[in-house]
Every structure is written in structure tokens, then in C-alpha cells.
């Protein structure tokens, strides 16, 4: 009899546990949803507070324009020069990041895969990496003039190192057990690289590409602050020189949007190519 009672009890248990767990999980999800909505609303609340503060003349308008004025300036600019600035900056980032990342992938793969090349090139790259990239600016201006070339070069330098470093460490960190698998199947060097090393290093390459891209935007601003006649960096300088904080804020806003947008593009590519990863972020 005893066993029957026990089995009845164990049969009853899971059902009871489920019934209690399900509503709890739902409530948890609902609560999290509220926090997510609050997260999206937070900037709006900040804007509203700023609007009130500025309109009540609690801070001088020549330092901090009301959010409504900033959006008005954005609207006005969108009718005129804004697209020209975005186009100029975007093209520079695209070119600089493209060149820097492509070089980094070639050099990083070579250094990651060849101990000899690593021995040959690593010390120099370590030294170059230690130079704060902005220190290149005067030299680039001297060598390349003030046209597009120095800007794109600077952006390329900025994008190069994160991509390069991540790819090299990605290749170096490939699981030895997978290498052994390629020995079991007697893969040649090329096949081993193509079928084991590069796919295994891809997640870290993407980490590098994404931080390289955000550095590319940063160096684009730096380059345009120094010398440019168009672009978002120029808009920043222009706003400062003409005492128009609304222009500065418009440029910052647009930079934020563009940075987020381009990163989201890379993120989508990453999610698609790396759907196989078994990580916290990709769990089903």
C-alpha cells in the first residue's frame, strides 16, 4: 500500500509544480516587459524634463537648446544639407572601415596561421598598436594633404587593430580537440584552415568587426573635426563656431543613429552566420 501512496504522490507532484511555475513565469515575463517599455520611455521622459527646464529659463538657451528646438533644427537640416553631411561621413566610414577591416583579415589570418609570420610581424604590430591612433593625424596631414586620403587612412588605422587582434586570438584559441579531428581526417593545411580554423574563429572575428566599426565612426569624427568642409564632424565644428548648440546636438543625434544602425546591420549578419553558436545570447 505504501508504494501506491508514494507513486500517487510522485505523479501528483510534477503537475502541481507546473501549475505553480507557469503563472509565476508569466508574471515574471510581464514584469520584465514593463521594464522594457520603461527603458524605451526613459529618453522621452528626459527630453520632456529638459524641455520644461529650458523653457522655464533654468539653464541658458545658448548652452542647452530645448529638445523641441533640436528636433526643429534636425527637421530644417533634413530639408537641406544634412544628407550631404551624412553621405560624406558615411562614405568615409565605409571606405576606411572596408580597407582597414580587409587588410586586418588578410594580415590577421596570415599571422594567426603562421608561426613564422607571427614571429616576424607581431613585434611591429604590437609597437604600432601602442601608438594612440590620433597621433598619426599630423603625419597623415603632412603626407596626404587635407583631402579624403588622410581621413580614410586614419579611419582604416582605427578599424584595423580590433579586427586584427580579435582574428589572431580567435585563430589561436581554436579548440585543440578540433585540430586533432582534422588530423584524424588527414586534412591538408588549406583544408584545415578552411574547414576548421576559419569557421571556429568567426565569432571572434565578428567581435572584432563590430568594435572596429564603432572605432571607425569615432575616427571619422576625429578626422572631420580637424579638417573638413562637409560631414557630421564638420557640422559639430560648425555648430561650435557659430554658437549653435542645436547643430552640435543634431550631429550627435545623427551619429548615434548611424552608429547604432550600422552596428545592427553587422549584428544581423552575425546572428545569421553564427546561428550555430551555443551561447547565452543564441539560446533557443
Amino acid at each position: 500500500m505504501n508504494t501506491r501512496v508514494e507513486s500517487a504522490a510522485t505523479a501528483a507532484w510534477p503537475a502541481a509544480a507546473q501549475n505553480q511555475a507557469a503563472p509565476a513565469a508569466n508574471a515574471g515575463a510581464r514584469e520584465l516587459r514593463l521594464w522594457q517599455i520603461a527603458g524605451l520611455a526613459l529618453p522621452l521622459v528626459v527630453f520632456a524634463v529638459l524641455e520644461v527646464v529650458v523653457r522655464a529659463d533654468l539653464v541658458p538657451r545658448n548652452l542647452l537648446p530645448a529638445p523641441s528646438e533640436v528636433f526643429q533644427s534636425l527637421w530644417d537640416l533634413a530639408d537641406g544639407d544634412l544628407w550631404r553631411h551624412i553621405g560624406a561621413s558615411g562614405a568615409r566610414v565605409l571606405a576606411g572601415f572596408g580597407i582597414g577591416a580587409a587588410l586586418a583579415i588578410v594580415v590577421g589570418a596570415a599571422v594567426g596561421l603562421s608561426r613564422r609570420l607571427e614571429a616576424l610581424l607581431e613585434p611591429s604590430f604590437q609597437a604600432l598598436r601602442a601608438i594612440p591612433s590620433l597621433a598619426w593625424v599630423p603625419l597623415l596631414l603632412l603626407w596626404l594633404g587635407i583631402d579624403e586620403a588622410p581621413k580614410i587612412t586614419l579611419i582604416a588605422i582605427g578599424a584595423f587593430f580590433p579586427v586584427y587582434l580579435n582574428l589572431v586570438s580567435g585563430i589561436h584559441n581554436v579548440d585543440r580537440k578540433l585540430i586533432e579531428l582534422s588530423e584524424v581526417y588527414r586534412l591538408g593545411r588549406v583544408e584545415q584552415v578552411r574547414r576548421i580554423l576559419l569557421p571556429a574563429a568567426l565569432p571572434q572575428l565578428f567581435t572584432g568587426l563590430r568594435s572596429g566599426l564603432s572605432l571607425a565612426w569615432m575616427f571619422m569624427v576625429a578626422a572631420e573635426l580637424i579638417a573638413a568642409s562637409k560631414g557630421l564632424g564638420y557640422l559639430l565644428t560648425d555648430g561650435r563656431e557659430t554658437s549653435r548648440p542645436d547643430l552640435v546636438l543634431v550631429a550627435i543625434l545623427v551619429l548615434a543613429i548611424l552608429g547604432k544602425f550600422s552596428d545592427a546591420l553587422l549584428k544581423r549578419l552575425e546572428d545569421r552566420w553564427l546561428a550555430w553558436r551555443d551561447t547565452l545570447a543564441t539560446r533557443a
Partner: protein
Amino acid sequence: MAAQINIRVQDKRFGDKQVLSQIALDIAPGEVVSLLGPSGCGKSTLLRIAAGLDTDYRGSLLLDTRPVAEAPLGAVGVVFQEPRLLPWLSVADNVAFASGKAAANVARVAALLDEVGLRDAGPLLPKQLSGGMAQRVAIARALYTQPRVMLLDEPFSAVDAFTRMRLQDLLLNVAAHHGTTLVVVTHDIDEALYLSDRIVVMGAAPGRILADLRIAQARPRDRRDAQLALLRAEILDTLDAAHAL
């Protein structure tokens, strides 16, 4: 009958430490042989030598009376302790890994997956599999090249006891079906008794063969068999006498 695998390892060292000494092992076609011993007895090293993964030793390795380097690719299949599936390939592509650039033999992949009880798992990614399922895929992958010999390094030590028993049956079935010779490294006496035609008991420091026992019991075996229990005691005595326990 000529041995299918003929292993002679006079001396194998890691640095100054001798890990294998005077190993002579002949394995007949279709035989199921377990290498049993405590950790550190060099059984995995011996398996790696047999797999051709370690060539830094004094001795010789013949497969079908010819040096193993001359054996065709895929003549020896290897299953490791972990599945070692490539996470970016689907289950089907993992099974067909050996085909490389050549088109995969889709029919063979399907047949193998069916055989290991994963008929519909082909399109899944490894991350969607349980440990036991992943190890089945690893077995299917090792069988894809239609190997004469399959070497398994503690293949079921990472799965739970019930899954292990099922996988042992599965392994025996596929090996019998394909006529594959099995060499299984294990530290589980019961596993060795259940699987093997022969148990090669190894001792440590340096790794050497202590005993070579034949298990005549017909399959499928009963894990509670009294004869097997006696053999179990004999193996324990052997290990005890060699101070391996």
C-alpha cells in the same frame, strides 16, 4: 587468421617519463577489444598511437599487415571521449565530414543516422542535441568512411549510466552489422565485460599489459551474469596484484 591490427610499442615517452613499455597487441578482424586500466596507464596514449595521431614512439603499427600510413583514408574511424562535432555544421554535414569537397553520400548519411536512432536529426545543429545524441552522431561520423577498425577513447564516460547502457548496445549492433573491429579504451570494468571479446588489462608506471582475457559469453550478455562477475573479480585481482588499485 592474420591480425588486422598489429601494434608493437617498445618504448613511448613524454619527456623523461616512460608511459608505455613492451606493448605487443594483435587484434583480429571483427574482434571487440577493450583496453582497461586505471588513469595514467597509457591506454589512451596507446589508442592515439593506433589512430596514427601520435607517431613519436619506438615500435611499429601495422594495419592489415601494412604500415598504417599506407592505409587508405578512413580505414580507421575514431570516436573521442567528447563528440567533437563541428558546431557550425548540421548533424548530416558532421556525419559526412570525411567527404570534404566531394558531394556527401546522402543515402549513406541517412542510413547511418537511421542506424544510430537519429533518423530525423540530419538538419539539426549540434547545440540542439543531448550528450548521448551527439555521441551517436560521432559514431555515425566515424562509420561514414566504412572503416575496418573503429577506435573509441572512453566513448561513453561523459553520459549518464542509462544512456551509456543503450549506447553500448548500439555500438555492438552497428559494429556487428558493419563487421567493424572495435578497440575501446575504458576505465569501466563492467563496460569492458559487457562489450568485449577480449579485455587487455593495463597497469601504470610504465604502461604495460598485465593480462589479456578472453570473454566467451554469447551476446547479448546479461549484465548480471555470474560468470562475468567472476571475471570482474579476476580483473580486480590482477589490478590489485600490480598495485594499480
